[in-house]
Protein backbone atom coordinates (compact mmCIF):
# COMPACT_ATOMS: atom_id res chain seq x y z
CA UNK A 1 0.00 0.00 0.00
CA UNK A 2 2.72 2.47 0.89
CA UNK A 3 5.84 3.29 -0.94
CA UNK A 4 8.24 6.10 -0.40
CA UNK A 5 7.59 9.40 -1.97
CA UNK A 6 10.46 9.50 -4.40
CA UNK A 7 10.64 13.27 -4.46
CA UNK A 8 11.11 13.30 -0.74
CA UNK A 9 14.01 10.93 -0.98
CA UNK A 10 16.63 12.47 -3.17
CA UNK A 11 19.42 10.71 -1.36
CA UNK A 12 17.76 7.37 -2.00
CA UNK A 13 19.12 6.06 1.24
CA UNK A 14 16.97 3.44 2.79
CA UNK A 15 16.39 3.89 6.51
CA UNK A 16 18.87 1.96 8.57
CA UNK A 17 21.27 1.46 5.71
CA UNK A 18 24.44 3.44 5.60
CA UNK A 19 23.72 4.78 2.15
CA UNK A 20 26.53 2.82 0.58
CA UNK A 21 26.37 -0.25 -1.60
CA UNK A 22 25.90 -3.27 0.62
CA UNK A 23 29.24 -4.58 1.80
CA UNK A 24 29.38 -8.18 2.83
CA UNK A 25 26.95 -8.68 5.68
CA UNK A 26 25.66 -5.10 5.65
CA UNK A 27 21.92 -4.74 6.04
CA UNK A 28 20.03 -5.30 2.86
CA UNK A 29 18.25 -2.14 1.77
CA UNK A 30 14.54 -2.76 2.07
CA UNK A 31 12.57 -2.57 -1.17
CA UNK A 32 11.43 0.95 -1.77
CA UNK A 33 8.06 0.30 -3.34
CA UNK A 34 4.81 -1.16 -2.09
CA UNK A 35 5.97 -1.72 1.41
CA UNK A 36 3.59 -1.58 4.33
CA UNK A 37 5.58 -0.97 7.46
CA UNK A 38 4.56 -0.94 11.06
CA UNK A 39 6.17 2.49 11.20
CA UNK A 40 4.04 3.90 8.40
CA UNK A 41 0.83 2.39 9.72
CA UNK A 42 1.46 3.79 13.21
CA UNK A 43 1.09 7.28 11.80
CA UNK A 44 -1.52 6.81 9.11
CA UNK A 45 -3.96 4.34 10.62
CA UNK A 46 -5.21 6.07 13.79
CA UNK A 47 -6.81 8.98 11.98
CA UNK A 48 -8.21 6.71 9.26
CA UNK A 49 -9.74 4.38 11.84
CA UNK A 50 -11.13 7.28 13.86
CA UNK A 51 -12.76 9.03 10.90
CA UNK A 52 -14.20 5.78 9.56
CA UNK A 53 -15.67 4.91 12.93
CA UNK A 54 -16.86 8.31 14.15
CA UNK A 55 -17.34 10.32 10.96
CA UNK A 56 -18.22 8.04 8.07
CA UNK A 57 -20.13 5.47 10.13
CA UNK A 58 -22.45 8.09 11.71
CA UNK A 59 -23.15 9.61 8.29
CA UNK A 60 -23.81 6.15 6.83
CA UNK A 61 -26.06 5.42 9.79
CA UNK A 62 -27.97 8.59 8.97
CA UNK A 63 -28.78 7.05 5.57
CA UNK A 64 -30.03 3.87 7.22
CA UNK A 65 -31.96 5.85 9.79
CA UNK A 66 -33.88 7.71 7.10
CA UNK A 67 -35.56 4.38 6.18
CA UNK A 68 -36.54 3.46 9.73
CA UNK A 69 -40.12 3.67 10.92
CA UNK A 70 -41.54 5.19 14.07
CA UNK A 71 -44.45 3.43 15.78
CA UNK A 72 -45.77 4.23 19.24
CA UNK A 73 -42.92 6.69 19.72
CA UNK A 74 -40.39 3.91 19.15
CA UNK A 75 -37.91 3.86 16.28
CA UNK A 76 -37.47 0.51 14.60
CA UNK A 77 -34.99 -0.64 11.99
CA UNK A 78 -36.90 -0.98 8.74
CA UNK A 79 -36.65 -0.27 5.06
CA UNK A 80 -39.51 2.04 4.36
CA UNK A 81 -39.68 5.11 2.16
CA UNK A 82 -42.35 6.65 4.36
CA UNK A 83 -40.07 9.34 5.85
CA UNK A 84 -38.88 10.46 2.45
CA UNK A 85 -42.46 10.53 1.20
CA UNK A 86 -43.69 12.45 4.23
CA UNK A 87 -40.99 15.09 4.12
CA UNK A 88 -40.93 15.52 0.36
CA UNK A 89 -44.71 15.76 0.02
CA UNK A 90 -44.85 18.54 2.60
CA UNK A 91 -44.98 21.98 0.91
CA UNK A 92 -43.61 23.58 4.08
CA UNK A 93 -40.40 21.59 3.62
CA UNK A 94 -39.94 22.89 0.08
CA UNK A 95 -40.71 26.48 1.10
CA UNK A 96 -38.14 26.14 3.86
CA UNK A 97 -35.65 24.57 1.48
CA UNK A 98 -36.05 27.41 -0.98
CA UNK A 99 -35.79 30.04 1.76
CA UNK A 100 -32.63 28.47 3.17
CA UNK A 101 -31.10 28.28 -0.29
CA UNK A 102 -31.94 31.91 -1.11
CA UNK A 103 -30.63 33.12 2.25
CA UNK A 104 -27.35 31.23 1.85
CA UNK A 105 -26.81 32.31 -1.76
CA UNK A 106 -27.67 35.87 -0.75
CA UNK A 107 -25.24 35.68 2.17
CA UNK A 108 -22.48 34.33 -0.10
CA UNK A 109 -23.02 37.18 -2.58
CA UNK A 110 -23.34 39.89 0.08
CA UNK A 111 -20.36 38.67 2.11
CA UNK A 112 -18.19 38.36 -1.01
CA UNK A 113 -19.09 41.89 -2.13
CA UNK A 114 -18.50 43.43 1.30
CA UNK A 115 -15.30 41.46 1.90
CA UNK A 116 -13.68 42.16 -1.46
CA UNK A 117 -12.79 45.84 -0.92
CA UNK A 118 -11.41 44.90 2.49
CA UNK A 119 -9.27 42.05 1.13
CA UNK A 120 -8.24 44.21 -1.83
CA UNK A 121 -7.11 47.03 0.41
CA UNK A 122 -5.23 44.68 2.73
CA UNK A 123 -3.52 43.04 -0.24
CA UNK A 124 -2.59 46.14 -2.23
CA UNK A 125 -2.81 49.21 0.00
CA UNK A 126 -1.16 48.13 3.22
CA UNK A 127 2.50 47.69 4.01
CA UNK A 128 3.93 44.23 4.56
CA UNK A 129 3.84 44.68 8.33
CA UNK A 130 0.28 46.01 8.40
CA UNK A 131 -0.83 43.14 6.19
CA UNK A 132 0.66 40.67 8.65
CA UNK A 133 -1.21 42.34 11.49
CA UNK A 134 -4.47 42.41 9.54
CA UNK A 135 -4.19 38.68 8.80
CA UNK A 136 -3.29 37.96 12.41
CA UNK A 137 -6.37 39.86 13.63
CA UNK A 138 -8.75 38.32 11.08
CA UNK A 139 -7.81 34.78 12.16
CA UNK A 140 -8.80 35.44 15.77
CA UNK A 141 -12.59 35.82 15.38
CA UNK A 142 -12.82 32.68 13.27
CA UNK A 143 -11.87 30.65 16.34
CA UNK A 144 -13.74 32.80 18.86
CA UNK A 145 -17.15 31.74 20.10
CA UNK A 146 -19.61 32.46 17.31
CA UNK A 147 -22.48 31.79 19.67
CA UNK A 148 -21.50 34.52 22.11
CA UNK A 149 -20.76 36.96 19.28
CA UNK A 150 -24.28 36.40 17.97
CA UNK A 151 -25.68 37.00 21.44
CA UNK A 152 -23.66 40.19 21.63
CA UNK A 153 -25.25 41.54 18.47
CA UNK A 154 -28.53 41.70 20.35
CA UNK A 155 -26.97 44.45 22.45
CA UNK A 156 -26.56 46.51 19.28
CA UNK A 157 -29.62 45.53 17.31
CA UNK A 158 -32.51 45.24 19.76
CA UNK A 159 -35.19 47.94 19.86
CA UNK A 160 -33.60 49.43 22.96
CA UNK A 161 -30.09 48.55 21.89
CA UNK A 162 -27.09 50.73 21.12
CA UNK A 163 -27.92 51.56 17.51
CA UNK A 164 -31.53 52.49 18.18
CA UNK A 165 -30.46 54.52 21.21
CA UNK A 166 -28.11 56.49 18.94
CA UNK A 167 -30.80 56.85 16.27
CA UNK A 168 -33.24 58.00 18.93
CA UNK A 169 -30.98 60.92 19.84
CA UNK A 170 -31.27 62.29 16.34
CA UNK A 171 -35.01 61.68 16.36
CA UNK A 172 -35.08 58.51 14.29
CA UNK A 173 -36.24 55.00 14.87
CA UNK A 174 -36.62 52.65 16.47
CA UNK A 175 -35.70 50.61 13.40
CA UNK A 176 -36.48 46.92 13.82
CA UNK A 177 -33.23 45.05 13.25
CA UNK A 178 -33.88 41.80 15.08
CA UNK A 179 -36.15 38.89 14.18
CA UNK A 180 -35.99 39.69 10.49
CA UNK A 181 -33.79 38.99 7.51
CA UNK A 182 -31.53 41.91 8.39
CA UNK A 183 -30.70 40.29 11.73
CA UNK A 184 -30.07 36.95 10.05
CA UNK A 185 -27.68 38.56 7.59
CA UNK A 186 -25.75 40.34 10.34
CA UNK A 187 -25.33 36.94 11.97
CA UNK A 188 -24.24 35.31 8.72
CA UNK A 189 -21.68 38.07 8.23
CA UNK A 190 -20.42 37.50 11.76
CA UNK A 191 -19.98 33.84 10.92
CA UNK A 192 -18.41 34.06 7.48
CA UNK A 193 -16.90 37.51 6.94
CA UNK A 194 -13.45 36.88 8.51
CA UNK A 195 -12.99 33.60 6.65
CA UNK A 196 -14.09 35.09 3.33
CA UNK A 197 -11.70 38.04 3.74
CA UNK A 198 -8.83 35.63 4.50
CA UNK A 199 -9.54 33.33 1.56
CA UNK A 200 -9.89 36.29 -0.82
CA UNK A 201 -6.72 37.81 0.59
CA UNK A 202 -4.72 34.61 0.03
CA UNK A 203 -5.69 34.60 -3.63
CA UNK A 204 -5.17 38.35 -4.09
CA UNK A 205 -1.60 38.40 -2.79
CA UNK A 206 -0.70 35.91 -5.52
CA UNK A 207 -2.06 38.09 -8.32
CA UNK A 208 0.87 39.02 -10.56
CA UNK A 209 1.45 42.73 -9.94
CA UNK A 210 3.05 43.17 -13.34
CA UNK A 211 -0.35 42.43 -14.88
CA UNK A 212 -1.87 45.27 -12.88
CA UNK A 213 0.89 47.65 -13.91
CA UNK A 214 0.52 46.58 -17.52
CA UNK A 215 -3.21 47.24 -17.44
CA UNK A 216 -2.58 50.63 -15.92
CA UNK A 217 0.12 51.50 -18.43
CA UNK A 218 -2.28 50.70 -21.21
CA UNK A 219 -4.65 53.24 -19.77
CA UNK A 220 -7.12 51.07 -17.88
CA UNK A 221 -8.72 52.88 -14.97
CA UNK A 222 -8.80 51.41 -11.50
CA UNK A 223 -12.24 49.84 -11.64
CA UNK A 224 -11.61 48.33 -15.06
CA UNK A 225 -8.26 46.96 -13.89
CA UNK A 226 -9.96 45.34 -10.91
CA UNK A 227 -12.79 43.85 -12.94
CA UNK A 228 -10.74 42.67 -15.91
CA UNK A 229 -7.37 41.82 -14.37
CA UNK A 230 -7.54 41.33 -10.61
CA UNK A 231 -10.84 39.47 -10.33
CA UNK A 232 -10.14 36.98 -13.16
CA UNK A 233 -6.63 36.30 -11.81
CA UNK A 234 -7.97 35.62 -8.34
CA UNK A 235 -11.09 33.80 -9.54
CA UNK A 236 -10.34 30.45 -7.90
CA UNK A 237 -9.89 32.01 -4.46
CA UNK A 238 -12.90 34.28 -4.80
CA UNK A 239 -15.19 31.41 -5.81
CA UNK A 240 -13.86 29.14 -3.06
CA UNK A 241 -14.42 31.95 -0.52
CA UNK A 242 -18.03 32.35 -1.67
CA UNK A 243 -18.47 28.57 -1.55
CA UNK A 244 -17.27 28.42 2.06
CA UNK A 245 -19.65 31.23 2.95
CA UNK A 246 -22.50 29.30 1.34
CA UNK A 247 -21.56 26.08 3.18
CA UNK A 248 -21.30 27.84 6.55
CA UNK A 249 -24.54 29.81 6.24
CA UNK A 250 -26.60 27.05 4.64
CA UNK A 251 -26.00 24.83 7.68
CA UNK A 252 -26.10 27.47 10.40
CA UNK A 253 -29.03 27.53 12.80
CA UNK A 254 -27.84 30.12 15.31
CA UNK A 255 -28.22 33.33 13.31
CA UNK A 256 -31.61 32.57 11.75
CA UNK A 257 -32.86 31.45 15.16
CA UNK A 258 -31.52 34.07 17.57
CA UNK A 259 -31.15 37.07 15.26
CA UNK A 260 -33.68 36.14 12.58
CA UNK A 261 -36.38 35.06 14.99
CA UNK A 262 -36.58 31.45 13.80
CA UNK A 263 -40.00 31.89 12.26
CA UNK A 264 -40.29 31.00 9.41
CA UNK A 265 -37.49 28.50 10.03
CA UNK A 266 -34.54 27.35 7.95
CA UNK A 267 -33.63 23.72 7.30
CA UNK A 268 -31.15 23.57 10.21
CA UNK A 269 -33.76 24.95 12.59
CA UNK A 270 -36.13 22.26 11.28
CA UNK A 271 -33.52 19.61 12.08
CA UNK A 272 -32.91 20.83 15.62
CA UNK A 273 -36.66 21.13 16.28
CA UNK A 274 -37.42 17.70 14.83
CA UNK A 275 -34.55 16.06 16.71
CA UNK A 276 -35.06 17.72 20.06
CA UNK A 277 -38.85 17.29 19.92
CA UNK A 278 -38.73 13.53 20.25
CA UNK A 279 -38.56 10.43 18.16
CA UNK A 280 -38.89 11.81 14.63
CA UNK A 281 -35.16 11.38 14.00
CA UNK A 282 -35.75 9.53 10.70
CA UNK A 283 -37.43 12.63 9.27
CA UNK A 284 -34.62 14.82 10.54
CA UNK A 285 -32.25 12.40 8.78
CA UNK A 286 -34.11 12.94 5.50
CA UNK A 287 -33.70 16.72 5.87
CA UNK A 288 -30.03 16.31 6.77
CA UNK A 289 -29.30 14.07 3.78
CA UNK A 290 -31.06 16.51 1.46
CA UNK A 291 -28.83 19.26 2.85
CA UNK A 292 -25.69 17.18 2.31
CA UNK A 293 -26.71 16.47 -1.28
CA UNK A 294 -27.25 20.20 -1.85
CA UNK A 295 -23.87 21.07 -0.34
CA UNK A 296 -22.12 18.44 -2.47
CA UNK A 297 -23.80 19.77 -5.61
CA UNK A 298 -22.82 23.34 -4.68
CA UNK A 299 -19.24 22.30 -3.94
CA UNK A 300 -18.78 20.42 -7.22
CA UNK A 301 -20.49 23.19 -9.17
CA UNK A 302 -18.38 25.94 -7.59
CA UNK A 303 -15.07 24.07 -7.90
CA UNK A 304 -15.88 23.19 -11.51
CA UNK A 305 -16.67 26.82 -12.23
CA UNK A 306 -13.57 28.06 -10.40
CA UNK A 307 -11.22 25.89 -12.45
CA UNK A 308 -13.17 26.20 -15.72
CA UNK A 309 -10.77 26.68 -18.61
CA UNK A 310 -7.76 26.21 -16.39
CA UNK A 311 -5.32 23.38 -16.51
CA UNK A 312 -5.16 22.14 -12.96
Amino acid at each position, binding site marked *: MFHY*NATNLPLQGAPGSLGRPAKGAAKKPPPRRRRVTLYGLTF*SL*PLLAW*QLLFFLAPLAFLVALSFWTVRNFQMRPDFDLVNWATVYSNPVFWQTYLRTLVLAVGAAALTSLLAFPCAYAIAFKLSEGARRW*ATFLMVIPFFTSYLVRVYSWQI*FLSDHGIINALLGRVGLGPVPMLNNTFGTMVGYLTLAFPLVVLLQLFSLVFVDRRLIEAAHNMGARRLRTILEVVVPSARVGLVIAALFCFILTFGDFVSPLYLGGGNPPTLSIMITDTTKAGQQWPRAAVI*ALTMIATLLAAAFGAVGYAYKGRAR
Partner: protein
Amino acid sequence: MTDVNRNPLIDWALRLYVLACFAFVFAPIAASFVFSFNEDRFPSLPLGGFSTEWYRAVAADPLVWDGLWNTLVAGVAVSLAATVLGFGAAYTDYRYRFFGKTVYLALALIPPTIPVVIMGLAMLAFLSRIGLSGLSWSVILAHIVICAPFAMAIVRLRLSQIDPDLEAAAWNLGASEWQAMAHVILPFARPAILAAFFITMAVSFDEFAIAWFVSGLNETLPVKVLGFLQGQVSPRINVIGTFVFLASMTLVILAQLLLFRRPAPEPNP
Protein backbone atom coordinates in the same frame (compact mmCIF):
# COMPACT_ATOMS: atom_id res chain seq x y z
CA MET B 1 3.42 48.40 -3.36
CA THR B 2 2.94 49.51 -6.89
CA ASP B 3 3.02 53.09 -7.95
CA VAL B 4 0.02 52.73 -10.19
CA ASN B 5 -3.51 53.52 -9.17
CA ARG B 6 -2.40 56.28 -6.87
CA ASN B 7 -5.37 58.28 -5.85
CA PRO B 8 -4.85 59.34 -2.24
CA LEU B 9 -8.55 59.89 -1.66
CA ILE B 10 -9.53 56.38 -2.74
CA ASP B 11 -6.56 54.88 -0.90
CA TRP B 12 -7.64 56.52 2.32
CA ALA B 13 -11.26 55.53 1.77
CA LEU B 14 -10.12 51.92 1.36
CA ARG B 15 -8.03 52.06 4.52
CA LEU B 16 -11.00 53.48 6.42
CA TYR B 17 -13.12 50.67 5.04
CA VAL B 18 -10.65 48.10 6.40
CA LEU B 19 -10.90 49.77 9.81
CA ALA B 20 -14.71 49.67 9.58
CA CYS B 21 -14.54 45.95 8.78
CA PHE B 22 -12.39 45.29 11.83
CA ALA B 23 -14.79 47.37 13.90
CA PHE B 24 -17.67 45.19 12.67
CA VAL B 25 -15.76 41.99 13.41
CA PHE B 26 -14.64 42.99 16.89
CA ALA B 27 -17.71 44.99 17.96
CA PRO B 28 -19.56 42.03 19.49
CA ILE B 29 -16.45 40.95 21.39
CA ALA B 30 -15.89 44.45 22.74
CA ALA B 31 -19.57 44.91 23.61
CA SER B 32 -19.62 41.70 25.60
CA PHE B 33 -16.66 42.92 27.61
CA VAL B 34 -18.02 46.44 28.22
CA PHE B 35 -21.55 45.34 29.14
CA SER B 36 -20.34 42.60 31.48
CA PHE B 37 -19.40 45.47 33.84
CA ASN B 38 -22.63 47.37 33.32
CA GLU B 39 -24.99 47.41 36.29
CA ASP B 40 -28.17 47.69 34.17
CA ARG B 41 -30.02 44.50 33.46
CA PHE B 42 -30.93 45.47 29.91
CA PRO B 43 -28.02 46.64 27.79
CA SER B 44 -28.43 50.07 26.25
CA LEU B 45 -26.87 53.51 26.05
CA PRO B 46 -26.04 55.47 28.10
CA LEU B 47 -24.15 52.92 30.16
CA GLY B 48 -25.21 52.38 33.72
CA GLY B 49 -22.69 52.39 36.54
CA PHE B 50 -19.70 50.10 36.84
CA SER B 51 -20.52 46.88 38.61
CA THR B 52 -19.05 43.46 39.18
CA GLU B 53 -22.36 42.08 40.36
CA TRP B 54 -22.79 39.86 37.27
CA TYR B 55 -19.34 38.39 37.79
CA ARG B 56 -20.30 37.51 41.34
CA ALA B 57 -23.59 36.01 40.13
CA VAL B 58 -21.77 33.82 37.62
CA ALA B 59 -19.10 32.78 40.11
CA ALA B 60 -21.82 31.75 42.56
CA ASP B 61 -23.58 29.54 40.02
CA PRO B 62 -22.50 25.91 40.47
CA LEU B 63 -23.93 25.02 37.05
CA VAL B 64 -21.42 27.35 35.42
CA TRP B 65 -18.55 25.67 37.26
CA ASP B 66 -19.81 22.24 36.19
CA GLY B 67 -19.95 23.45 32.62
CA LEU B 68 -16.49 24.95 32.85
CA TRP B 69 -15.11 21.71 34.24
CA ASN B 70 -16.75 19.65 31.47
CA THR B 71 -15.41 22.07 28.88
CA LEU B 72 -11.88 21.92 30.25
CA VAL B 73 -11.79 18.13 30.50
CA ALA B 74 -13.19 17.79 26.99
CA GLY B 75 -10.88 20.50 25.64
CA VAL B 76 -7.69 18.92 26.95
CA ALA B 77 -8.64 15.37 25.95
CA VAL B 78 -9.84 16.46 22.51
CA SER B 79 -6.82 18.59 21.72
CA LEU B 80 -4.37 15.88 22.81
CA ALA B 81 -6.05 13.18 20.75
CA ALA B 82 -6.76 15.42 17.76
CA THR B 83 -3.17 16.65 17.65
CA VAL B 84 -1.78 13.10 17.75
CA LEU B 85 -4.16 11.93 15.00
CA GLY B 86 -3.64 15.07 12.95
CA PHE B 87 0.13 14.83 13.19
CA GLY B 88 0.02 11.22 12.00
CA ALA B 89 -2.12 12.15 9.03
CA ALA B 90 0.04 15.15 8.13
CA TYR B 91 3.19 13.01 8.29
CA THR B 92 1.51 10.34 6.15
CA ASP B 93 0.69 12.99 3.57
CA TYR B 94 4.23 14.40 3.70
CA ARG B 95 6.08 11.14 3.43
CA TYR B 96 4.00 8.58 1.53
CA ARG B 97 2.27 8.17 -1.77
CA PHE B 98 -0.22 5.39 -2.00
CA PHE B 99 -3.33 4.20 -3.76
CA GLY B 100 -6.38 6.01 -2.41
CA LYS B 101 -4.45 8.93 -0.94
CA THR B 102 -7.04 11.43 -2.21
CA VAL B 103 -9.75 9.60 -0.31
CA TYR B 104 -7.53 9.48 2.76
CA LEU B 105 -6.93 13.23 2.61
CA ALA B 106 -10.62 13.90 2.03
CA LEU B 107 -11.55 11.86 5.12
CA ALA B 108 -8.88 13.72 7.06
CA LEU B 109 -9.92 17.23 6.03
CA ILE B 110 -13.66 17.28 5.20
CA PRO B 111 -15.37 16.85 8.61
CA PRO B 112 -15.37 20.56 9.60
CA THR B 113 -17.24 21.48 6.41
CA ILE B 114 -20.23 19.29 7.28
CA PRO B 115 -22.81 21.50 9.04
CA VAL B 116 -22.61 20.98 12.79
CA VAL B 117 -26.35 20.38 13.02
CA ILE B 118 -26.02 17.40 10.70
CA MET B 119 -22.93 16.10 12.49
CA GLY B 120 -24.78 16.55 15.77
CA LEU B 121 -27.79 14.56 14.58
CA ALA B 122 -25.64 11.83 13.00
CA MET B 123 -23.46 11.51 16.10
CA LEU B 124 -26.45 11.48 18.44
CA ALA B 125 -28.24 8.78 16.42
CA PHE B 126 -25.10 6.70 15.95
CA LEU B 127 -23.87 6.97 19.54
CA SER B 128 -27.33 6.14 20.89
CA ARG B 129 -27.39 3.08 18.67
CA ILE B 130 -24.08 1.79 20.03
CA GLY B 131 -24.91 2.89 23.56
CA LEU B 132 -22.41 5.72 23.89
CA SER B 133 -24.61 8.81 23.94
CA GLY B 134 -25.03 11.08 26.92
CA LEU B 135 -21.79 9.94 28.49
CA SER B 136 -19.18 12.37 29.68
CA TRP B 137 -16.91 11.38 26.80
CA SER B 138 -19.49 11.38 24.00
CA VAL B 139 -18.63 15.00 23.31
CA ILE B 140 -14.94 14.12 23.26
CA LEU B 141 -15.43 11.40 20.62
CA ALA B 142 -17.37 13.78 18.41
CA HIS B 143 -15.07 16.78 18.87
CA ILE B 144 -11.97 14.80 17.91
CA VAL B 145 -13.60 14.18 14.52
CA ILE B 146 -13.92 17.88 13.73
CA CYS B 147 -10.72 19.00 15.49
CA ALA B 148 -8.22 16.53 14.00
CA PRO B 149 -8.47 18.16 10.53
CA PHE B 150 -7.39 21.52 11.97
CA ALA B 151 -4.39 19.86 13.63
CA MET B 152 -3.54 18.07 10.41
CA ALA B 153 -3.73 21.25 8.32
CA ILE B 154 -1.46 23.13 10.72
CA VAL B 155 1.18 20.39 11.00
CA ARG B 156 1.03 19.84 7.24
CA LEU B 157 1.82 23.50 6.67
CA ARG B 158 4.96 23.12 8.80
CA LEU B 159 6.07 19.82 7.28
CA SER B 160 5.80 21.35 3.82
CA GLN B 161 8.62 23.69 4.87
CA ILE B 162 11.03 20.97 6.01
CA ASP B 163 14.04 20.23 3.82
CA PRO B 164 13.12 16.76 2.51
CA ASP B 165 16.81 15.80 2.57
CA LEU B 166 16.93 16.04 6.36
CA GLU B 167 15.08 12.84 7.16
CA ALA B 168 16.90 10.91 4.46
CA ALA B 169 20.20 12.27 5.74
CA ALA B 170 19.40 10.94 9.20
CA TRP B 171 18.69 7.52 7.72
CA ASN B 172 21.92 7.61 5.78
CA LEU B 173 23.78 8.38 8.97
CA GLY B 174 22.37 5.22 10.44
CA ALA B 175 19.26 6.37 12.25
CA SER B 176 16.26 4.09 12.19
CA GLU B 177 12.96 5.52 11.01
CA TRP B 178 11.86 5.94 14.63
CA GLN B 179 15.08 7.72 15.57
CA ALA B 180 14.77 10.03 12.57
CA MET B 181 11.22 10.79 13.66
CA ALA B 182 12.32 11.56 17.22
CA HIS B 183 15.40 13.61 16.35
CA VAL B 184 14.51 15.28 13.05
CA ILE B 185 10.79 15.42 12.29
CA LEU B 186 9.37 15.98 15.76
CA PRO B 187 11.76 18.80 16.76
CA PHE B 188 11.15 20.51 13.44
CA ALA B 189 7.37 20.21 13.77
CA ARG B 190 7.27 21.13 17.47
CA PRO B 191 5.93 24.70 17.06
CA ALA B 192 3.19 23.47 14.74
CA ILE B 193 2.31 20.62 17.10
CA LEU B 194 1.93 23.08 19.97
CA ALA B 195 -0.05 25.46 17.75
CA ALA B 196 -2.30 22.58 16.69
CA PHE B 197 -2.83 21.75 20.35
CA PHE B 198 -3.95 25.31 21.12
CA ILE B 199 -6.12 25.71 18.03
CA THR B 200 -7.92 22.41 18.49
CA MET B 201 -8.54 23.33 22.12
CA ALA B 202 -10.06 26.63 20.97
CA VAL B 203 -12.25 24.82 18.44
CA SER B 204 -13.46 22.32 21.02
CA PHE B 205 -13.91 25.11 23.55
CA ASP B 206 -16.25 27.02 21.22
CA GLU B 207 -18.15 24.16 19.64
CA PHE B 208 -21.68 24.09 20.97
CA ALA B 209 -23.98 22.41 18.44
CA ILE B 210 -22.57 18.89 18.38
CA ALA B 211 -21.98 19.13 22.12
CA TRP B 212 -25.60 20.21 22.57
CA PHE B 213 -26.86 17.19 20.62
CA VAL B 214 -24.73 14.50 22.23
CA SER B 215 -23.88 15.76 25.69
CA GLY B 216 -27.02 14.77 27.56
CA LEU B 217 -26.52 15.94 31.13
CA ASN B 218 -22.78 16.61 30.83
CA GLU B 219 -23.20 20.02 29.27
CA THR B 220 -20.16 22.03 28.30
CA LEU B 221 -20.03 25.76 28.87
CA PRO B 222 -21.12 26.76 25.33
CA VAL B 223 -24.14 24.47 25.68
CA LYS B 224 -25.01 26.37 28.86
CA VAL B 225 -24.76 29.58 26.87
CA LEU B 226 -27.16 28.12 24.34
CA GLY B 227 -29.52 27.38 27.23
CA PHE B 228 -29.19 30.96 28.47
CA LEU B 229 -29.93 32.26 24.97
CA GLN B 230 -33.20 30.40 24.91
CA GLY B 231 -34.11 31.92 28.24
CA GLN B 232 -34.23 35.58 29.16
CA VAL B 233 -31.77 38.35 28.51
CA SER B 234 -29.17 38.30 31.21
CA PRO B 235 -25.89 40.19 31.53
CA ARG B 236 -24.46 36.95 32.88
CA ILE B 237 -23.95 35.79 29.30
CA ASN B 238 -21.69 38.80 28.80
CA VAL B 239 -19.58 37.63 31.73
CA ILE B 240 -19.33 34.08 30.40
CA GLY B 241 -18.79 35.53 26.92
CA THR B 242 -15.93 37.71 28.11
CA PHE B 243 -14.33 34.69 29.73
CA VAL B 244 -14.83 32.54 26.64
CA PHE B 245 -13.44 35.27 24.37
CA LEU B 246 -10.37 35.76 26.54
CA ALA B 247 -9.72 32.02 26.69
CA SER B 248 -10.03 31.35 22.98
CA MET B 249 -8.25 34.55 21.95
CA THR B 250 -5.32 33.59 24.17
CA LEU B 251 -5.17 30.14 22.57
CA VAL B 252 -5.40 31.47 19.02
CA ILE B 253 -2.83 34.22 19.62
CA LEU B 254 -0.39 31.70 21.16
CA ALA B 255 -0.89 29.39 18.19
CA GLN B 256 -0.29 32.16 15.68
CA LEU B 257 2.82 33.37 17.49
CA LEU B 258 4.20 29.84 17.40
CA LEU B 259 3.42 29.39 13.72
CA PHE B 260 4.36 32.74 12.25
CA ARG B 261 7.19 33.80 14.52
CA ARG B 262 9.97 35.02 12.30
CA PRO B 263 12.94 32.72 12.44
CA ALA B 264 15.85 34.07 14.45
CA PRO B 265 18.38 35.70 12.15
CA GLU B 266 21.21 33.39 11.22
CA PRO B 267 24.49 34.54 12.75
CA ASN B 268 26.86 35.58 10.03
CA PRO B 269 30.22 33.87 10.33
